[in-house]
């Protein structure tokens, strides 16, 4: 199984595809240099890139609160979390690059709006409690989505997800703890926590994507073992997990239809406003423009750092090629100079 056979004709492709399907069905992992169908490769690039973009755009709504964190403890935690999101983006970009795309190309597609990121990050973080609601609900939904991806058929993506899931668990717990502190605080703090949960609950449910019968990529992704569970299945799992957690927080979820369905053994919940979802996806969410502008500005304003690092590396490489020795410094002996060269 390889992409290396340049003259692989149709007959070979059929054989390769059969081998590929057998490997996927046998729960073997596909690795970068293995032969894979073009559509599988394209689908993975789309999904991993969108995932990577979500991680780095996701830094913005929370970074918004770093300077206003209520204590040094909370500030240190929030900085660590935002740094983790940057790290997650980098793991995922690396995984995408193993499929033959480049980092610059991916960033370019994000900046030009040709690739998407998760719609959830187009909502604003209005109060400090939003940091808690994002950790509990948004990261909670992400974990529910991502844990099955640790068994994804594409090796590099699965490995990146293992690392990410380990780290996400801290994100979720810090959010929950933050909300609990507010919920048990003053009346105003409790109200602030409740308001944040009210605003983040529905968008979090939308994170699982459109209902199964409207999901464009689901069936093929499941056949390829990229996805393991349907959107609706994961959404239900998330709701079931959250209801008792909200109870323990002393907060309510903003859904009058939320009831225990004895027969199904699951919580029933009200209809999701998919018009809102589509609007935000189309670019008309409260913060779409702000997020992408901020990303572009950060990239442009950071250009000098990348250029300086490049220039330094080029200079060092030139010097070592020409056996360059630094001019004699009277403060230093020759031995030290040798050490530097």
């Amino acid at each position, binding site marked *: *199984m*390889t992409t290396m056979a340049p003259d692989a004709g149709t007959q070979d492709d059929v054989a390769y595809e059969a081998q590929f399907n057998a490997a996927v069905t046998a729960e073997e992992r596909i690795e970068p240099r*293995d032969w894979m169908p073009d559509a599988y490769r394209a689908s993975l690039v789309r999904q991993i890139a969108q995932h990577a973009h979500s991680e780095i755009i996701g830094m913005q709504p929370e970074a918004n609160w770093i300077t206003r964190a209520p204590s040094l403890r909370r500030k240190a935690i929030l900085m*660590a979390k935002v740094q983790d999101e940057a790290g997650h983006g980098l*793991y995922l970009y*690396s995984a995408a690059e193993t499929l033959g795309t*480049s980092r610059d190309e991916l960033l370019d597609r994000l900046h030009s709006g040709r690739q998407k990121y998760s719609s959830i990050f187009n909502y604003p973080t209005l109060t400090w409690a939003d940091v808690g609601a994002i950790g509990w609900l948004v990261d909670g939904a992400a974990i529910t989505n991502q844990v099955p991806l640790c068994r994804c058929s594409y090796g590099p993506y699965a*490995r990146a997800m293992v690392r990410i899931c380990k780290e996400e668990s801290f994100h979720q717990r810090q959010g929950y703890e933050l909300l609990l502190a507010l919920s048990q605080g003053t009346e105003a703090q409790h109200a602030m926590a409740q308001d944040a949960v009210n605003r983040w609950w529905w968008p979090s449910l939308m994170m699982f994507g459109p209902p199964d019968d409207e999901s464009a990529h689901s069936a093929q992704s499941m056949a390829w073992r990229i996805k393991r569970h349907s959107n609706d299945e994961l959404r239900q799992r998330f709701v079931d997990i959250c209801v008792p957690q909200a109870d323990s927080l002393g907060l309510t979820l903003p859904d009058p239809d939320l009831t225990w369905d004895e027969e199904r053994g699951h919580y029933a919940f009200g209809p999701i406003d998919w018009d809102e979802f589509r609007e935000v996806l189309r670019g008309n969410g409260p913060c779409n423009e702000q997020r992408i502008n901020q990303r572009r500005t950060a990239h442009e304003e950071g250009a000098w750092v990348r250029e300086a690092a490049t220039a330094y590396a080029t200079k060092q*490489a030139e010097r070592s090629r020409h056996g360059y020795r630094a001019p004699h410094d009277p403060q230093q002996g020759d031995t030290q100079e040798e050490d530097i060269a």
Partner: protein
Amino acid sequence: MSTADWPLWEVFVRSRRGLSHTHAGSLHAPDATMALRNARDLYTRRSEGISVWVVPSAEITASSPDEKDSYFEPAADKPYRHPTFYEIPEGVRHL
């Protein structure tokens, strides 16, 4: 070299003394020093390592997945290389 040409580096992390370095992932950096620093920030944020190696990805020579069966096949028909191949009478100890 433009930013777009920053080479790819493979990162290996030794999690503690007594264990070998294990592949952790990859990253882009203009030179080895920056690659090492980035590797520390990216792969050891939670004390996952006490030592890091970075290797330019282009310097790695790998066996071809095309030959994966034939290349490793010679080992497959030599079960006598494993201790379980041998039958030892019951009751014989320390063997």
